[in-house]
């Protein structure tokens, strides 16, 4: 299963990219699973995604909880708490 992953703001700078296609290994089917899969890359990935309190996710442009299920083709975004307005 393949998903499109986006990164914004400080998180985008930390991981050094704005977007990528990610092929999920078998058994990875939630936002939390994707996060763990990316953290396992180590280095900046582990650091950037480590602090759950500073991490937000959206699936198909709606805020999503860690347990939210993923389907092939989904757009998943990770970003820090928002600061607009």
């Amino acid at each position, binding site marked *: 299963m393949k998903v499109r992953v*986006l990164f*914004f*703001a*400080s998180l985008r700078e930390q991981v050094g990219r704005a977007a990528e296609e990610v092929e999920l290994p078998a058994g990875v089917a939630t936002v939390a699973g994707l996060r763990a899969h990316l953290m396992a890359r180590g280095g900046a990935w582990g650091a950037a995604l480590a602090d759950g309190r500073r991490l937000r996710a*959206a699936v198909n*442009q*709606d*805020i999503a909880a860690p347990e939210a299920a993923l389907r092939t083709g989904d757009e998943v*975004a990770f*970003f*820090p*708490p*928002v*600061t*607009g*307005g």
Partner: protein
Amino acid sequence: MASFVGLVRDRNDGAAVATMTLEHYPGMTEKAIARIVDEARGRWQVIDCTVIHRIGELSPAEQIVLVAVASGHRGDAFAACEFIMDFLKTQAPFWKKEATPDGARWVDARASDDAAAARWAPPPNNRAA
């Protein structure tokens, strides 16, 4: 008609701010704002409502955001306008980066903004949209 305009601060957390850059999540931004406005329309009597949020680089004192709400009832106009601002601050995917004499820095989310949004209880069932 109640309205709110947010301006770029010239100082923040003790440092002078030269410019401020707003990043956003195209697509989700529009969806999040539409949802917040729908929620306000479900809670209060709203004749019309305008939300404008700028992106990109801004200078101190420039306008960041405008929320304007027209209603036949003054209290509804104020409540809907403040509700929309509180939820824009906590639900809409915008991120501020400030350029200061010590370099660029991302603005931290504020606990006070979460508290402001949390004040708004869910709508009573009989008024839910």
